[in-house]
């Protein structure tokens, strides 16, 4: 049952990504985990596209890749800016929201 097992795989990727986001302290590490999550979603889209013969699903997988690129670019820019102004790359050092 490839659909079922590949779904399992994408779930696992997604949850690993979540785990990474929750645990990683390095900002770039966070980005990497987000990429995992996006890949899980893309995998799902492609899987369903194949299973149901749906064109738009593939298109959306394409969009995800494009958005991932945007996200990575902006994210990395922020990290570099952060490393200059705040002299840190650790997400938990940036706690301006602290009450």
């Amino acid at each position, binding site marked *: 049952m490839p659909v079922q097992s590949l779904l399992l795989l994408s779930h696992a990727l997604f949850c690993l990504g*979540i785990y990474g986001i*929750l645990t990683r302290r390095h900002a770039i590490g966070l980005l990497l985990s987000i990429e995992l999550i996006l890949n899980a979603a893309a995998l799902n889209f492609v899987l369903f596209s194949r299973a149901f013969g749906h064109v738009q699903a593939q298109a959306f997988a394409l969009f995800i890749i494009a958005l991932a690129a945007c996200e990575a670019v902006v994210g990395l820019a922020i990290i570099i800016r952060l490393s200059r102004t705040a002299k840190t790359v650790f997400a*938990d050092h940036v706690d*301006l*929201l*602290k*009450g």
Partner: protein
Amino acid sequence: MDHAAAPAVTLTLPQLGWIPALPLLAFTLLLFFGRRLGRFSPWVAVAALAGALGITLSLAGTVFHGHRVAVSWAWLSADAPVWSIGLSVDGLSWLMLFVVTSIGTMIALYSMGYMHGDPRLSRFFAYLSLFCASMLLLVLADHFLLLYVGWELVGLCSYLLISFWFEKPEAAAAGRKAFITTRIGDTGLLLGILLLFWTAHELHFSQLDAVRAHLSPGLLTLISVLIFLGAAGKSAQIPLHVWLPDAMEGPTPVSALIHAATMVAAGVYLVARTLPLFTPESLQIVLTIGLLTHLFAGTVALTQTDIKRILAYSTLSQLGLMMVALGLGAAPLAMFHLGTHAFFKALLFLGAGSVIHAAHAQELGQLGGLRKTMPWTAALFFIAAVSMSGLFPLSGFWSKDAILLAARHDHPWLLWVLLGGAAMTTAYIFRVYLRCFEGTAKDHHGATPHAHESPMIMVLPMAMLGLGAIGAGLAGSPWLHHPLFRLLGETHVHEGVDVPILAWSTVAAALGLGLAWVVGVQQRYLLPPALRPLGSQLYRLAANKYYVDELYDRFLIRPFLDLARGLAGFDQRVIDGAVNGAGRVGWGLGELKAWFDQAVVDQLVNGLARTVRGAGATLRWIQTGIVQQYLFVVVMAVVVLSALLRR
């Protein structure tokens, strides 16, 4: 009881609106262009008031024929008839209209002299015009709500005018006191209106007879007592009388117009207007309060030394007398006395104002012998004093004796009490007259020698009022067959002069006069030595106004302020800190101190965090600012929610 019988015809007359509109227009003009008008601004007010007087007079014929003039429009609801308000003139309101516009015109004229040179001259006349507009609105209203509007507006004008010289802290305080005290009474009126609306669904004065027919007596008593509470506040009846003596901080023409002739009489007017709602029980209350005020204020007036204050207490006393008349169910008599009182009391105040204007003093101790320098003022003051004492055949005689007659008819004992009150009245007013105008001029403080007669612009209006003080009573006298009572719809009137009453009241007045001379001027002790300590104690009690102000301060005002402060503290600490309880435990004492003020919200969140994290975690945990921890909560929430919502 014998309320105005249903008028024969009701005419619709839109011009009615001009009566309050003219002074209102003057107010607007003066407010915006007052500075530019400068010295001419008084004339705007005078012209407006004279115009209102003219319209009032032009209505006289119609009203004396027993017709009613009215105009109405929708106000709070486009279709519900109960919310359409209007103006109307019947005999009762015509009398008030006449009093307000005629005395208002006179006093406006007088003020031109009195306020001459004041930097806020135009503002004064603006307020005066606004007052007249509101008062006329109150009088013309044919609907409880509109009356309430006018009622509050006159209160406002009274406030503005009492604290007109607001640089004086006493004036500012007195204005506030007047406004708040009368507003306490007004809540009674408001509650009465609410109750009336919900029980009878009718607020028009013209329908009150029908309302009386279909409400239970208990309800009527409650409503009428509430309405009387409003009247008592405005007419300064016990226990809401405290504001009126303080109100003398205002300019004297204001005291004459508002705090003697018109506004304070509004309470009497209100009760007369709503008399159909009063049951015997509530009339008994009106009678008791009126009598108490009459006697209480009379004794206080005997002991005061500030001439304006004496006049203020005298006003209280006379208003009490009017309330007594109302309590006897005799609204026309009360209104009659209201009319004559307006003339002689306004004149007394203007006379006092003239004295203050000339001598710059208002303590009896600093005045004396002014008759030589101010003959006109002295003569007019004398006329007014005689009129108030009820000596035959001046105005005061007719109105007071009518009340005495009614009292004798209903409760014979009341006659003697009222005669005692009349003696007091004579005593205190002649004490003022004798010590101001007779005797020798005082030198210390250089009070009187350079005094001079007031200018014509002040004397002339006083003379006009003097004519009223002499002759206004004739309108209700048997000599002219009581045209006034016919105007008010009263048909059962006493014909001819009642000689015993005439005799008794003359005796009372003579007694009072003697008292004024012996005790007030010569300052001799009349009491036997054994009773003197008691006498001086009583004197001190009265001179300190029975300590009512002090009692109020101790038992009402301070607890009120304490309550306010207490609630504010409660708000800050308890409410703001209520949710804290749980979180507070987890905090160190130092943090507790630092966060004491801002505790609520943070600790609320804290409590939440504690439940999530367990006992060991601190509050800050949830607000670390670390996004990942927020995210963790989100993920957990998603897991739990989706597990719960899974189908």
